[in-house]
């Protein structure tokens, strides 16, 4: 077997290289998680140097050359930062709740709307269907810098300015959900639908009893990809929500002050936990979603 011939090369060269690259890939997450269990004093000790000016120049040159030290193992592991976060800093929980209130309706809405539209785009006859789909595709590829102004104009006209609706509604109708679900729906063989049609089933029954069960993996994939994207939103809240206390945690963590650095890692861990757990649970769906997105047709 050829596999044995390459076996030695794998062990000697490729595997160490992959381990090294994987370590680089995991480094930020591992550092964040381990440092979340450090006491406030230890964090101040390791990261105190960040307090100074972020730039070089004379000012920095005059300062003592103390620098950040990267430590993975806490001197004494403690749950204190998490306790502080939950008990004394209720602000963080409020911001976390804001994130939920922004993300959850988008996920539910985008999945529902996308699944319905996917059936039409993949399986119904409609003049100009593919041209319309191309328009969706094009919109999906536009960065937020393009859609921000149209979003603002509608929010203004509908009186949604400074409310979550200004972010949630465009999110629900984002073209990505339709695109991804359509890719999954196109993969359902026509023969299945034809058989049901022969038995006299209408479109709604076909959708409910054949399409919907087969689209479950697609819905999972969309939930995961849309969750990852929206849980990470920065641009929209930054521009559309003026009050700091209404921001999602994804924006607030960027402006964390020095006094809060003791709980910053714990807050970061708290924030990434839901999406990371969902990812570990549904990785296969995510992978299938990415693969389907790359298939034309």
């Amino acid at each position: 077997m050829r596999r044995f011939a390459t076996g030695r090369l794998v062990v000697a060269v490729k595997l160490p290289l992959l381990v090294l690259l994987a370590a680089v890939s995991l480094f930020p997450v591992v550092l964040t998680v381990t440092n979340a269990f450090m006491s406030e004093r230890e964090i101040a000790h390791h990261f105190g140097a960040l307090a100074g000016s972020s730039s070089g120049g004379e000012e920095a040159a005059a300062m003592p050359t103390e620098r950040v030290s990267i430590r993975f193992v806490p001197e004494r592991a403690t749950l204190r930062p998490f306790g502080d976060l939950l008990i004394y800093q209720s602000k963080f929980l409020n911001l976390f709740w804001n994130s939920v209130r922004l993300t959850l309706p988008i996920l539910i809405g985008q999945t529902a709307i996308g699944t319905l539209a996917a059936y039409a785009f993949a399986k119904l006859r409609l003049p100009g269907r593919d041209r319309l789909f191309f328009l969706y595709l094009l919109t999906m590829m536009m960065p937020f810098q393009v859609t921000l102004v149209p979003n603002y104009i509608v929010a203004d006209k509908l009186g949604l300015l400074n409310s979550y609706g200004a972010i949630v509604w465009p999110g629900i109708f984002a073209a990505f959900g339709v695109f991804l679900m359509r890719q999954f729906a196109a993969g359902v063989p026509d023969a299945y639908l034809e058989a049901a049609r022969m038995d006299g089933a209408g479109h709604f029954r076909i959708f409910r009893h054949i399409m919907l069960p087969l689209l479950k993996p697609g819905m999972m994939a969309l939930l995961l990809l849309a969750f990852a994207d929206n849980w990470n939103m920065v641009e929209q809240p930054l521009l559309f929500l003026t009050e700091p206390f209404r921001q999602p945690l994804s924006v607030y963590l960027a402006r964390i002050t020095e006094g809060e650095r003791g709980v910053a890692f714990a807050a970061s861990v708290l924030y990434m936990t839901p999406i990371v757990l969902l990812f570990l649970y549904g990785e296969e769906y995510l992978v299938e979603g990415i693969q389907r997105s790359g298939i034309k047709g």
Partner: protein
Amino acid sequence: MPRYRAPIAREAVAVLAFLGPSLAGFLLFYLIPFGATVYYSLLDTPIQGRFVGLDNYRLLWASASFRKAFVNSLAFAAVSVPALFASSLGLALLLNRAMPLRRLFRTMFLLPLVVPAASIALVWQALFHWNGAINAAAASWGTEPTDWMNTRWAFAVMTVVYIWKNIGYNLVLFLAGLGNIPAEQLEAASIDGAGPWRRFRSIVWPGLAPVSFFAVVMSVVGSFKIFRETYMVAGAYPNDSIYTLQHFMNNQFQSLDYPKLTSAAVLLALVIGLAVAGLFRAESRAREASE
């Protein structure tokens, strides 16, 4: 009686029911306001404005900060997309063959895709700050420290962060593409004496064309999202080399400068639309050539 309705009518009702909600929202929140954006970009002020033709575009282009942001965003895409393409393809080739722990490796490279930028902002700061860990390492080796975030190096830092974030997505695409290349074909070529480079060029590379096309498109989209990381690490006023269109838009937004905002959005939509159309055309031409 609905049961005996002509198939065409039934189809129309179904289209309305299934596509209606999405299309209504798409029109209301994207297409119509984009039309309004184009319209406003031709007026001197949005309320009772005067038609000024392309004056706003001329003024926009005359603004040095717009040109800087525009050039930086395009430069970032031009540098980081090929860099991401090469590194993720390399990684996919490494992971393609039977490899112990293959799935675990894939999980580890995919993880950054779902981690919110905010959760690891502190890590990037701890690394690239003037007093950060990298300069600490440099100092212990006796090298001069580098001001990573406040010099042109910031561009390189953002490229690295971008690759870190997006490599998993492309990796999955490329692994799927590689999986579609018949093993017999590669084996036959290798029996005929084709070396690894020859096999890559004549079999693997053309076989990856459809996937590559989509990887490039998605990478370009992703390159415009790098603002999130930039903002987390460098704040609203980063070094000139990573001042992107999103920073420009934010600044115009603070003053609600409609002429600049609308014309910038339309111009960017045009550039990206043309780039995507060009890519689609290149892809279909490549497809025709291979058939």
